[in-house]
């Protein structure tokens, strides 16, 4: 499978004949193996020429931009769509415009999201020192919530259900992490006000970009989401699908990074009104995330091993099949 490339240093990206050359301040000149590159993450201050953008677009490589100092996600250069099927786009739009169809899909996404949170809690329930009863109580709550989802007839109700679930879920983080340097306190996004929030925000933004890169490999239009409304100014389908993968990809990674002490206080910087992961911290986070995405598991439908990253693509395929009305979408459920 093609690789994801991360650039942390300052430098210049330009086209040289039939390849891309990165001139880094630290490492000097380096060629980027475009044929083997899936997408590009720019964390450093990278000057990028128009001809290299053209080349990246031609090679169908998405470029995700992050702010160098704060690590905030800034946006994605999503090359002109290369896969295009009028039929799929029309069906996607139809499922957005037809409110009932839209609610049905949004409900499945919320269902997937809460189920995945349940899976994470199940995993930690027997591995923690204290809080097993609290976790069990929330798992029971989630079960009831999932049963009641059918009654929700509005997107707003579904959003609220998800919000409540997430609140309960976050309230258990202290039991799972058990590290006084990383208390949950409360969820703060822009800006994150403590270390744990900084990790969640950073991880989630990466998760959005991964789903976006995978969407690029399908016929789906990332601007038409179902749970997150479409305003055509930003991508939203990736936010939908990320709901299902955040718990198992981002949250579990955070727990393991903290419990194995791969990240500690030192990896965070205090800014005037925010606490953010330092560059060193971001590097560690990404290295481990990349590892996790490459890990494979046996897939029952396909009868062979697929990577975690591939699971995201398969999820998008399932949504496409739902839109084509060939098979009702049932969200992925981790099995462990």
């Amino acid at each position: 499978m093609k690789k994801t490339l991360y650039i942390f240093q300052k430098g210049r990206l330009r086209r040289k004949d039939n390849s891309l050359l990165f001139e880094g301040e630290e490492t000097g000149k380096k060629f980027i193996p475009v044929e083997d590159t899936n997408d590009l993450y720019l964390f450093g201050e990278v000057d990028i020429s128009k001809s290299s953008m053209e080349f990246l677009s031609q090679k169908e490589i998405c470029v995700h931009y992050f702010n160098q100092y704060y690590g905030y996600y800034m946006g994605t250069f999503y090359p002109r769509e290369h896969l295009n099927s009028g039929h799929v786009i029309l069906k996607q739009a139809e499922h957005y415009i037809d409110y009932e169809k839209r609610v049905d899909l949004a409900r499945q996404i919320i269902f997937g999201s809460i189920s995945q949170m349940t899976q994470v809690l199940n995993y930690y329930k027997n591995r923690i020192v204290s809080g097993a009863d609290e976790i069990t109580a929330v798992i029971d709550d989630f079960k009831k919530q999932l049963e009641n989802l059918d009654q929700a007839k509005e997107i707003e109700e579904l959003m609220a259900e998800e919000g409540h679930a997430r609140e309960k879920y976050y309230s258990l983080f202290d039991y799972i992490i058990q590290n006084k340097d990383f208390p949950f306190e409360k969820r703060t996004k822009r800006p994150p006000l403590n270390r744990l929030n900084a990790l969640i925000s950073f991880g989630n933004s990466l998760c959005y970009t991964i789903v976006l890169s995978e969407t690029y490999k399908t016929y789906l239009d990332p601007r038409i989401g179902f749970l997150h409304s479409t305003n055509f100014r930003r991508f939203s389908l990736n936010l939908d699908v990320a709901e299902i993968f955040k718990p198992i990809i981002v949250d579990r990674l955070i727990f393991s990074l903290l419990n194995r002490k791969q990240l500690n206080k030192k990896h965070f910087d205090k800014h005037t009104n925010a606490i953010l992961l330092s560059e060193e911290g971001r590097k560690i986070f990404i290295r481990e995330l990349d590892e996790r995405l490459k890990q494979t598991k046996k897939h029952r439908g396909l009868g062979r091993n697929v990577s975690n990253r591939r699971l995201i693509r398969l999820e998008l395929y399932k949504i496409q099949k739902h839109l084509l009305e060939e098979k009702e979408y049932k969200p992925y459920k981790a099995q462990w």
Partner: protein
Amino acid sequence: MAVTATHIWYYFICKREVWLLSRGIAADQEDENLDLGRFIDRNTYQKNKKEIVAGNIKVDRVRKEGEEVVVGEVKKSSRFKESSRYQLLFYLDSLRQMGIEARGELLFPQEKKREKVEWTEEKKKELDKVVEDIRKIAKKPVPPAPKKINFCKKCAYREYCWAEG
């Protein structure tokens, strides 16, 4: 919809694939089997490949034997004989509509085999039925459900078809 030789090819293998192709839903572009196909195409047959393009058909070899035009189609293996036969018949029929009478030959160089394919009124009727059926499949609002067949293992759509689970 313009029925092409590709549709004919897949018609005998998987009707679902015909539908997907007809809606412009191409297979996974990173698929390793597809890459292998491209590689074989570009390398193995490059040397003796003299493609002839006429209208929307593309044939591998054409030669003249006396008054007769002979169209040769080179195939990797005889595994998909039915597909190969009808594809060639489709070519012969298209040529006929352009006023060229030809007979055909399927070549399987790796197996050192060849097979004759001739245009007859009867065969033409069968071909028309196939073309008609392809049009019907393409018009269906929903794709035919996937069926696990041997070909799935090598099919570039397999991740799409079997994503459930």
